[in-house]
């Protein structure tokens, strides 16, 4: 089951037999005060530099979120998307809880976008799925509903089933629904990550769906977050996770690419070796100039 996303000229395929899809998380004003202030003042220059930096660091796609209190989010996300699309040529994940912002984002997006996100709540399904269908986009479905975040993998699977089935009613194919199995913070609950891993395996075995999660959640409130994220991602990949919205810190990207090779998604280590040569060449270049 392959999910195909496109930018102006590039195609990214997410699937169980594909290399893992790294979606850069950085373009999100939540918790970035200076960035939020710039955006509030209409300055999107940081969006361009963050886009370029993340793609250079190894992002296959970028997540773009414009969630700032008391701003015109539809307007802002449009201008952020225009800036990002001018800076880089990778597919984008349009991230908002505001329907109008998703709609505005889709209206200026060139290619086939990923919409982040819908939940298993009836109201959200009815509002967001028609939008996704109309724009021929793919969508992330969060495995929670009106009652909150389910504690057990089985309950999360039921939410996932409901989303895939509702999407089908609007003509959205199962491969165009990426389930978010919900990564919770291990700092607040020692069993949080084992539950997420069990959920990933269950969804892979029962639905065969592609999945995407916000990987950095797992390390919230702890020191050396990148190292924890880098430890978590290969475990999640082995359980069946096929993409993540994540940090493009070197340790995280390297650990994902290592797991790609180890799990048989990088035949004969072609990408791994090519990346090594590119780094070596860059170092030699730097030494001679």
């Amino acid at each position, binding site marked *: 089951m392959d999910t195909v996303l496109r930018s102006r000229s590039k195609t990214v395929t997410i699937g169980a037999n594909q290399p893992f899809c790294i979606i850069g998380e950085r373009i999100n004003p939540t918790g970035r005060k200076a960035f939020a202030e710039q955006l509030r003042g209409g300055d999107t220059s940081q969006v361009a530099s963050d886009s370029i930096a993340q793609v250079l660091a190894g992002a296959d796609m970028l997540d773009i979120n414009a969630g700032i*209190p008391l701003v015109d989010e539809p307007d802002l996300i449009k201008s952020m998307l225009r800036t990002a699309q001018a800076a880089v040529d990778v597919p984008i994940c349009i991230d908002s809880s*505001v329907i109008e912002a998703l709609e505005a984002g889709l209206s200026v997006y060139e290619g086939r976008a990923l919409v982040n996100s819908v939940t298993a709540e009836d109201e959200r399904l009815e509002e967001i799925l028609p939008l996704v269908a109309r724009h021929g986009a793919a969508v992330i479905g969060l495995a929670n509903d*009106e009652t*909150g975040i389910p504690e057990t993998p089985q309950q999360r699977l039921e939410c996932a089933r409901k989303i895939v089935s509702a999407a089908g009613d609007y003509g959205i194919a199962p491969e165009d629904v990426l389930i978010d199995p919900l990564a919770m*913070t291990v*700092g607040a609950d020692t069993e949080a990550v084992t539950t997420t891993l069990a959920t990933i395996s269950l969804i892979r075995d029962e639905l065969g769906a592609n999945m995407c999660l916000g990987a950095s959640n797992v390390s*919230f409130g*702890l020191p050396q977050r990148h190292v924890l994220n880098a430890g978590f991602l290969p475990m999640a990949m082995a359980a069946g996770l096929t993409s993540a919205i994540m940090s493009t810190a070197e340790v995280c990207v390297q650990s994902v690419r290592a797991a790609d090779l180890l799990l048989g998604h990088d035949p004969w280590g072609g990408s791994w070796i090519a990346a090594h040569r590119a780094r070596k060449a860059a170092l030699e270049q730097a030494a001679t100039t």
Partner: protein
Amino acid sequence: MTDEEILQLLYDETLIGNAPAVIDGVNQGLAQDLEPERMLYDGLIPSLEEVGARFERGDYFVPEMLIAARAMQGALDILRPLLAETDTQQVGTFLMGTVKGDVHDIGKNLCNIMLEGAGFTVIDLGVNVPPEKFVEQIAAHNPDVVGFSAFLTTTMPMFKANINALQKAGIRDKVIVMVGGAPVTQEYADAVGADGYSADASSAVKKAKELIQLKRDQVPA
């Protein structure tokens, strides 16, 4: 052990989140007639305040704060009935909930634990709480503070809706309103007419105490 040694033990063991040792310490204190108030105010509370200070400085991390607060809770479960007997003034009652349309609860739960650890009685209404439920529960429990939590820019407007509902029910002035959540700012809290905002669980405790004190000073009991 001397009383001082027990107080030091309560302080030290709470600081590292050693719940069984804290409970043993409290029982030992009670066995030798150490006043519950002294254990609370000279051992446990200063320890948790130090935990909060370390967290704010970036020296302590979330799990350390959680286990310290849980150790404190274990002690409070034993001490609370005894403190009630001696008519100690309650720190306060805090009614908490994530607003309607929002199911995020990690931050809210952290606040609950820190508040309980600091001696508050916390009533948690859970997630996706509609305005009418807040109104009904405020009427039922008469809390000092009500806390609204929201994680999304789409659900933050519920702060205002909740405050309007309190006004309409005529109970806005009876309760201190605090708001919080990842996208929330002081500016936004002011704009919706909340009494207080804090960026994390540890400063929420300080803010709540400060606002309650302010209110008690204004209205002499």
